[in-house]
């Protein structure tokens, strides 16, 4: 609103006299205005376009930058002199030169740099960063799979680094990590997930040298108990992730390892540590009594003994037990713990039954988040006790609780008013249930995919009452038609994501109504056979924020639908056009979208290699392209290599052409698969 006022007054002033009064406004004042516009990039952009002085002041004010490409980096860096946070994840190609430019431009100011999806840089670029950017505090190098010890040693030159992510830097070894440990003494967070070259020695040195560590992610490292004693000596450690560390087992967790009690540890993640049973867990918990969140996913069975081990954790708030085998006695024992859980996840747990779950939720009445996805044995008994006990629930995920009858969902709506996130995918819920749920007025995410019993009537209740809805998933809920969509799009102006895939009754009129949701970012209309280019054009013109579009199997959408898309949806990053009628002409049109990063095109009848080649060349910002394998031999090899060199990854798929199935038939197939 502020922006519009400003714009309006600007124009008025311009009409009155040519002297621009805005230039007399002080910089501080405009800075304050800009502070209010934080988190609203389009508004900031229009603000900066008001006049020259606004433009310059906005440039000065900007602290964060997320460029799409590094091509124009010199100009961009010149324009924004005081950037502290630079996110290069959208740039398909970040070379050492780019990094050297950044390091030269933001020598003293740069504090955060995200390279987690960038490719093509090496140790040289990192060296220039490490040497020049003395104030660099956060650096994300995740997924830099080519980085070696030398590059990490260059990073170690950044002495003030406090947060460092090295996830999936598979070639880095203890030597590189040793450099970081010695060089970056102020580290508070280090993520070494999937750095499979790093072992006990490197981790131990990190723990010895970096005394300030708060968070340590050692997931999937080949470490053993040898480094644990040093880790537990860290005075400030709050968050320890040992996911998938198979080298740590019960026997190794003996008293020698833990001479010292950790008073600060708040979060412990030992998910996937199959060799740590309740014995090891009780040893871990006995020395770290301040744990608030415990993640035991995919671990040993949740038994009475395991639950007993949690007794020592007096301020435990959250337990994640995803994928564990659960016994009733174990769940009951968790219920009997003298604590009040706020979060409990039993997603995909085998063995959860009504009796145990009801008892558990009746004891933990303060639960805010509950995940009982795929607890296939529970019935309305559990739902009733959840609804009766946990009235403060904000998030309930209960995908595929197939034994819960349709009447039970009424209880949820009647009791849990504070729900913000509700996942009812693949459930028996019907319109009455939706009507009841619509009373949760703060609902922002509703997933009712594969709910074959719901219709437009139920959705209309949601549209009427849940005005804060941002996410709506109607995947294969075939009872939904244009009317339902119209109700939702009318009642939920903040809608950002909607999935109406395979809602075969949907036509262009749904898209017309959805085009009212100007914040729409993700639209999936996969398999909506009746949708045409006209509907898509309406979306393109009105939903400027659209960044992800899936029009797979929309046979009626052809090249002419791409023209408005290319013209108006300048924020489109990802598009799936498989099985549609789009040809290379349409694809080439899309090349006009400068931030297009990824497209998927399988089984496009009209696609010719030449056009595809031209489109590949024309889309400069591509990072991922999914194509049919047969096209590979038809594209010239130099072209493929050139596009790859620009930072694009080809995914060659060899999927056979799939004819669309009847919804009921599809559901039966799904159920067959599950059994």
């Amino acid at each position, binding site marked *: 609103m502020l922006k519009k006022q400003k714009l309006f007054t600007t124009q008025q002033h311009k009409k009155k006299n040519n002297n621009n009064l805005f230039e007399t406004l002080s910089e501080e004042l405009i800075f304050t205005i800009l502070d209010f516009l934080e988190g609203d990039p389009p508004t900031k952009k229009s603000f900066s376009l008001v006049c020259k002085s606004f433009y310059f002041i906005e440039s000065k004010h900007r602290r964060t930058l997320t460029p799409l490409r590094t091509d124009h980096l010199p100009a961009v860096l010149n324009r924004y002199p005081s950037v502290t946070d630079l996110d290069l994840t959208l740039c398909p190609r970040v070379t050492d030169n780019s990094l050297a430019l950044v390091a030269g431009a933001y020598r003293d100011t740069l504090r955060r740099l995200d390279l987690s999806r960038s490719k093509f840089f090496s140790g040289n670029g990192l060296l220039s960063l490490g040497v020049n950017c003395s104030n660099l505090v956060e650096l994300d190098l995740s997924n830099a799979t080519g980085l070696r010890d030398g590059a990490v*040693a260059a990073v170690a030159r950044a002495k003030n680094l406090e947060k460092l992510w090295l996830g999936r830097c598979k070639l880095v070894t203890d030597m590189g990590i040793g450099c970081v440990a010695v060089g970056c003494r102020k580290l508070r967070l280090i993520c070494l997930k999937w750095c499979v070259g790093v072992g006990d020695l490197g981790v131990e040195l990190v723990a010895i040298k970096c005394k300030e560590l708060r968070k340590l992610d050692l997931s999937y490292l080949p470490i053993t108990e040898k480094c644990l004693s040093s880790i537990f000596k860290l005075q400030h450690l709050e968050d320890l992730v040992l996911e998938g560390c198979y080298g740590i087992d019960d026997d190794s967790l003996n008293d020698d390892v833990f001479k010292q009690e950790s008073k600060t540890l708040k979060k412990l993640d030992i998910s996937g540590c199959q060799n740590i049973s309740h014995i090891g867990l009780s040893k871990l918990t006995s020395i770290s009594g301040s744990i608030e969140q415990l993640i035991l996913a995919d671990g040993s069975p949740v038994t009475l003994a395991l639950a007993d081990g949690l007794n020592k954790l007096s301020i435990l708030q959250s337990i994640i037990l995803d994928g564990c085998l659960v016994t009733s006695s174990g769940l009951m024992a968790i219920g009997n713990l003298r604590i009040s859980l706020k979060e409990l996840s039993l997603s995909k747990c085998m063995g959860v039954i009504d009796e145990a779950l009801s008892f558990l939720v009746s004891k933990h009445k303060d639960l805010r988040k509950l995940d009982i996805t795929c607890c296939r044995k529970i019935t309305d008994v559990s739902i009733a006790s959840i609804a009766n006990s946990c009235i403060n629930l904000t998030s309930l995920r209960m995908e595929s609780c197939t034994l819960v009858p349709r009447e039970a969902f009424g209880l949820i709506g009647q009791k849990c008013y504070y729900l913000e996130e509700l996942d009812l995918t693949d459930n028996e819920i019907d319109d009455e249930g939706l009507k009841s749920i619509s009373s949760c007025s703060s609902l922002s995410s509703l997933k009712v995919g594969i709910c074959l019993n719901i219709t437009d009537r139920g959705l209309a209740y949601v549209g009427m009452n849940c005005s804060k809805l941002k996410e709506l998933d109607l995947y294969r809920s075939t009872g939904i038609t244009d009317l339902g969509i119209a109700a939702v799009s009318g009642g939920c102006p903040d809608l950002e994501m909607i999935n109406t895939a395979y809602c075969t009754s949907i036509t262009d009129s749904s898209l017309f109504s959805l085009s009212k949701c100007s914040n729409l970012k993700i639209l999936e209309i996969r398999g909506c056979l009746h949708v045409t280019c006209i509907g898509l054009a309406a979306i393109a013109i009105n939903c400027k924020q659209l960044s992800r579009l899936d029009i797979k199997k929309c046979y009626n959408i052809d090249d002419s639908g791409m023209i408005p898309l290319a013209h108006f949806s300048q924020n489109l990053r990802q598009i799936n056009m498989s099985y549609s009628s789009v040809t290379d002409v349409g694809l080439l049109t899309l090349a006009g979208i400068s931030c297009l990063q990824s497209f998927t095109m399988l089984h496009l009848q009209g696609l010719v290699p030449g056009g595809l080649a031209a489109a590949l060349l024309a889309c400069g910002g591509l990072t991922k392209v999914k194509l049919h394998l047969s096209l590979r031999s038809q594209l010239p090899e130099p072209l493929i290599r050139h596009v790859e060199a620009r930072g694009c990854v080809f995914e060659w798929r060899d999927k056979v052409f799939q004819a669309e199935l009847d919804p009921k038939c599809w559901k039966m197939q799904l159920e067959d698969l599950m059994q």
Partner: protein
Amino acid sequence: MDPKGSLYDNNWARTSSLTSPGNGLPTNLSSHPPSFYGAKIEAPFKQFNQISPTQGLLPGESNNDIKILDQENFPISDSSQTTKLQDWDPSVMLNNLSFMEEKIHQLQDLVHLIVNKRCQPFGRPDELVTQEQQLVTADLTSIIVQLISTAGSLLPSVRHTLTNTSPSVGQLSQLRGNTFPFGSGPSSGIRPQNNSGDKFFDQFAQNGVPKNCEVEQNCHIEEHETKDEDDAEEGENLPPGSYEILQLEKEEILAPHTHFCTICGKGFKRDANLRMHMRGHGDEYKTPAALAKPHKESGSEPKLIKRYSCPYAGCKRNKDHKKFQPLKTILCVKNHYKRTHCDKSYICSRCNTKRFSVLADLKTHEKHCGKDKWLCSCGTTFSRKDKLFGHMALFQGHTPAIPFDDTKGGPAGALDLEIRENNSKVGSMNFCFGSNPSSENGVQNMDVKGNNIDDPTNYFSPMNFEGCNFGGFNEFSQPTFEDSEGSFSFLMSGSFNYAPKIAGETNSDNL
């Protein structure tokens, strides 16, 4: 003449014959406890030094001389004396010695004469000088021969009797400050002759530093002790005084050989090698007794444990040090002295940094050199990774040193990439996009989003591209492009500078 005197002469004779004039000072005297013997010995040297101004006392270079002397000496002593003197006769010995004394006095007079003549202001004909020199040389040679044969005569007698009563050596040893019994007779009997060879070699090596008798003694010890090495290792934590301390001289420690052939003077490191060598000198050395390893003295005398002192003053291994820690064996002495007080002259050929003074150390190192791949920034290498990390954990600021080939980091060949990148920037990105690949004119300026796209692979630089037929592109359906041109040209404007004209027929337009 008593044996002491004979040896005294012996010493002097050798010294004088081998030392090049000018540096004939007995350096090693200082490091020894003064003895009347040592004090006495200075006199002849002083005498000799007075003579020394007469340049060219020895004809030619001393080096050559030594060899000549060696060759001359030993056959004589071998054939004429040692074999004859199987039964040692003191009276014969005494005769020999007095003969030598006479000879030496003659020579002394002669040299005095020469010196006096030299002092005269006017010069003399060269022939005369040469004659005199030859005369001196001849005399010296005969003295040396005599001396050696006399000393050598001791050898067979002692060897056969297997007694401990070698009068000369025994008395001599008692005269020294360090008293020790010559436990094993055979070796001590051999020594004088061995030492003569040793001496020659040494003095040549040491640039003519004269030696006194102690070196000779120590030589005994050395051989003696190498045999008794096992015994020596038994005693640890010996109370001071319960063992006797022996001290070798620097030159002796550094001598490459410790065993010398009494006949030809050839040196050996091992006693066994010497015995093998000796077989070539005659049948008498081929007997089992001669070839057998000399037995340890099973004798009645209780053996004192021997320990060694390093000759380097101030060293902890030196017997004068407050916290003296003796060395157990000769080998220990040798290695200790070389490691601690000598230059490290052996350099590892692999790393060119590590230096050693003991060859064996170098060889040991070379076995592992290069395998020490765990390198710290301080330069220390470790053969084990955990040792390196323990080291780094201990010291502040020590980081792992990343091997050079790893320092580039990043994707493989990042540097190459960078270079090629620069090249590709120079070469404009002109794509031969024509439907007729041979057409050079078909270069279409397809500037994909600015020229400054870094193109590492350089596929589209003219160099690569013109040669490339772009096979797939021949299949471009031209109608499609015509169509596309019309339909979306408006979209292309402004969004980026990609020219949508692609097909070959637009060549003429472009050029």
